[in-house]
């Protein structure tokens, strides 16, 4: 203890310092030991901390530092060498570890810092995504609202429902205070309040259409914020102090005509309605963008829905109209059918009723002819007969109106004496004319052929009609009739531009002019002259009886003869000229007139006109059979009678010239057909004639179908039977 020049430590002042150092070292060591423990504890808890090795190192460093300070505690007092070595070892270790840690930290701290940066970055991103999510959610909600609204609007095709639903749904979705729709008036100059949400019955508020605020809204297809004080928005008394924001949007009203097939609707011709939406007052709510978008979309949808509704209305109206028209047409058709049926019934009845007296007249007059008469009497009877024949023809023609109508009437062509035809007509009309003190003159051109071929009866009928009219409508004066052959230049008539007569070698055109000094024709009546049943109302004559058919029938006949008929008059009271031209054939021969009067005269005394003619009569009615047989026997025929079809077919042969078959019998037609097939088709005989009481078209058609050579109406007169037989034998057919 040499060096024990130790100074006696000044214990009392150094002792305090040492004591404090001692305590501090203790606490440092404590801290140094507890920090790693804490670290380990929390790292263990965390599980994501990536730098374990660093922690271990750090821990070691801290532990060693702690150890150092701990060991330091022993060095305050005299300590042994072991403690010194331990202390040194600890210090060395600590130095190593701490240097290593320091070096390590150089690498690690930037990493740690970048982690932090990334963390910040991610946080920012998350916040952004959150924001976007919020946006998308709002958009989706908007879309849902729109779809729902659209669905509501489009689920109806009624205009009013559409508009009302729109307002209701919008009001609900956007929690509006008021929602209104202004429609343009018909004049297009004003907007009228059509629908509102809250008010029940909008009174007829109107607002002129050309206000600046309205123009502003109409000129853009977006929803536009407008002032709550504008006329379109001032709909209700202010509920609160601060009116809510108001937005207006245009609703295009599309018309049917806007939709062309290949075009899109033109923007220039659009009409708009105005939809005004008000937020609740005092709510401090503002119009969000998505709400405005919703409003715009809805407005467009409403436009489409309205146009659909309009189209539907249109088509329903058209359909209703068509149905009405259908009903009316059906009624008209049924009425027409009834009328036709009534007419046919009438014709059928009158047919028979008119023929009966005519037959009586004709039959008895012809009977009369065969008796002893004085020449005057004979003349009178002949006139009666001629007139009644003409009348019978007229009746046949009138009652066969249907045949005239459908053009199945055919002319009876034959040769006849043209001059005498004219003279006869004059003779017929002269008595009546002389009663009225009218002078009738006839002038036939010298180059008019004496004979012509055509339908004599109908020509005479036409002439008689025309001359008769002249006489009828003239109270005084004269009637002059001229007939001549029409030359080429005079063939065309300015009044008949579609009449192109073409003369040829065997034909000539007869032109007849009948001039009278009577009451003339009112130019207004001219178109109706040739119309059936149409008579002029201005006729002064009272007894202008007649059915009004005359000129119509004449026109038909003249047309059938390839001709033309017209009337000329200078006016009422100035007389009238009737002119007609018909085509007639040139003929050399001069066969006798076909009029029954002449033929009867020659056949007058021939009682047995058909000697030895073998005839068979088939009729199941005994009386009829006997009468027909009597008739034929009277005419000299050799008659066999049968009463059934079988008997007839059994006995019929080629020897028979004619067989009369009553087709009203049960198998009448069949027998006729069989006879025709068996015999008449291949040989000349026998000729078949159908006897029937019906003169209607159906019977005639049926007879034609089975192939009979002629049809005769029962009951038959002697003359009729005579003419039937002579026609048959001459022509093999009844005309």
């Amino acid at each position, binding site marked *: 203890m040499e060096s024990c020049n130790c100074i006696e430590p000044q214990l009392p002042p150094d002792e305090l310092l040492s004591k404090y150092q001692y305590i501090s070292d203790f606490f440092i060591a404590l801290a140094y030991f507890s920090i790693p423990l804490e670290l380990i504890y929390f790292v263990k808890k965390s599980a994501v901390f990536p730098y374990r090795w660093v922690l271990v190192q750090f821990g070691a460093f801290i532990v060693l530092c702690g150890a150092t300070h701990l060991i330091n505690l022993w060095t305050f007092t005299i300590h042994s060498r072991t403690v010194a070595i331990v202390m040194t070892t600890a210090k060395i270790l600590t130095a190593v570890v701490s240097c290593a840690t320091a070096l390590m930290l150089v690498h690690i701290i930037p990493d740690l810092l970048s982690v932090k940066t990334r963390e910040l970055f991610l946080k920012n991103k998350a916040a952004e995504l959150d924001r976007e999510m919020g946006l998308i959610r709002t958009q989706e909600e908007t879309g849902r609202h729109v779809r729902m609204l659209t669905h509501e609007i489009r689920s109806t095709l009624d205009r009013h429902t559409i508009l009302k639903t729109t307002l209701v749904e919008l009001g609900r979705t956007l929690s509006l205070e008021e929602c209104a729709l202004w429609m343009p008036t018909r004049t297009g100059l004003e907007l009228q309040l059509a629908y509102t949400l809250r008010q029940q019955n909008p009174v007829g508020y109107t607002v002129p259409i050309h206000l600046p605020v309205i123009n502003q809204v109409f000129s853009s297809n977006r929803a536009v914020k407008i002032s709550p004080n504008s006329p379109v928005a001032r709909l209700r008394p202010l509920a609160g102090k601060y009116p809510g924001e108001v937005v207006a949007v245009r609703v295009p009203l599309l018309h049917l005509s806007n939709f062309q097939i290949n075009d899109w609707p033109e923007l220039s011709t659009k009409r708009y309605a105005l939809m005004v939406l008000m937020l609740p007052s005092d709510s401090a709510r503002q119009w969000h963008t998505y709400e405005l978008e919703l409003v715009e979309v809805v407005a467009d949808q409403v436009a489409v829905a309205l146009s659909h509704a309009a189209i539907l209305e249109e088509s329903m109206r058209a359909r209703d109209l068509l149905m009405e028209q259908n009903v009316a047409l059906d009624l008209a058709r049924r009425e027409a059918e009834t009328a036709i049926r009534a007419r046919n019934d009438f014709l059928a009845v009158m047919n028979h009723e008119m023929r*009966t007296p005519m*037959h009586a007249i004709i039959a008895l007059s012809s009977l009369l002819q065969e008796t002893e008469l004085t020449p005057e009497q004979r003349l009178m009877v002949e006139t009666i007969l001629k007139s009644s024949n003409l009348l019978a023809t007229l009746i046949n023609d009138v009652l066969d109106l249907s045949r005239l109508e459908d053009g199945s009437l055919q002319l009876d062509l034959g040769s006849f004496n043209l001059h005498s035809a004219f003279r006869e007509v004059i003779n017929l009309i002269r008595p009546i004319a002389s009663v009225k003190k009218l002078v009738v003159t006839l002038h036939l051109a010298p180059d008019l052929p004496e004979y012509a071929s055509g339908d004599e009866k109908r020509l005479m009928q036409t002439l008689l009609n025309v001359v008769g009219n002249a006489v009828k409508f003239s109270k005084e004066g004269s009637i002059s009739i001229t007939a001549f052959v029409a030359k080429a230049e005079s063939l065309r008539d300015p009044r008949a531009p579609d009449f192109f007569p073409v003369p040829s070698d065997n034909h000539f055109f007869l032109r007849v002019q009948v001039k009278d000094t009577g009451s003339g024709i009112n130019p207004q009546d001219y178109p109706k002259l040739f119309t059936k049943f149409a008579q002029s109302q201005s006729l002064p004559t009272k007894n202008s009886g007649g059915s009004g058919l005359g000129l119509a029938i004449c026109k038909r006949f003249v047309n059938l003869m390839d001709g033309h008929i017209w009337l000329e008059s200078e006016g009422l009271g100035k007389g009238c000229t009737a002119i007609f031209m018909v085509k007639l054939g040139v003929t050399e021969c001069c066969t006798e007139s076909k009029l029954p009067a002449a033929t009867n005269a020659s056949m007058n005394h021939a009682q047995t006109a058909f000697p030895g003619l073998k005839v068979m009569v088939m009729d199941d*009615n005994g009386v009829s059979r*006997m009468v027909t047989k009597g008739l034929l026997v009277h005419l000299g025929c050799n008659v066999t009678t049968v009463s059934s079809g079988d008997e007839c077919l059994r006995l019929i042969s080629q020897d028979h010239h004619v067989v009369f078959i009553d087709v009203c019998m049960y198998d009448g037609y069949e027998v006729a057909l069989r006879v025709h097939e068996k015999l008449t088709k291949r040989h000349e005989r026998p000729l078949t004639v159908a006897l029937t009481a019906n003169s209607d078209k159906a019977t005639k058609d049926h007879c034609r179908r089975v192939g009979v050579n002629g049809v005769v109406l029962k009951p038959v007169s002697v003359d009729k039977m005579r003419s039937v037989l002579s026609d048959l034998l001459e022509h093999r057919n009844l005309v």
Partner: protein
Amino acid sequence: MDVIQMQRTWVEYTKSLYREGFLDSQFAQLQLLQDESNPDFVVEVVSLFFEDSERLLNELTKVIDQQQGVDFKKVDAHVHQLKGSSSSIGAQRVKNACVAFRSFCDEQNIEGSLRCLHQVKQEYFLVKNKLENLFSLERKIVAAGGSVPTEELNFL
């Protein structure tokens, strides 16, 4: 009565028959067919008509009186026959009644048919009566040595 008077009565009677529509022109035709070779033609035809009609009328009565239901086809066939016969000899009123009868047959109207049958019978008996009177007059004329003045029927 002497012949002239009888003849005049005959003419008047015949005229009245035509006037009242019992007979029509067809009867006149029948009278035409009567000549020397066939002197009784009209009487024969008319007798045949009487026989035929009476038969048909009996048949008709039987068919229509059926309790089980009227066979209108048969009725129609008979009426058709009757119509044919009456029109062949010129019994105009009988024929017209037959025409009406046929239309009721088409409608299958029993009431109407019954009524028509009565009508036809009535007309038939009327005309039969008239014709029998006419013929007895003719017989009287012939028996008294005169001839039936058919040529004086130049009227109507």
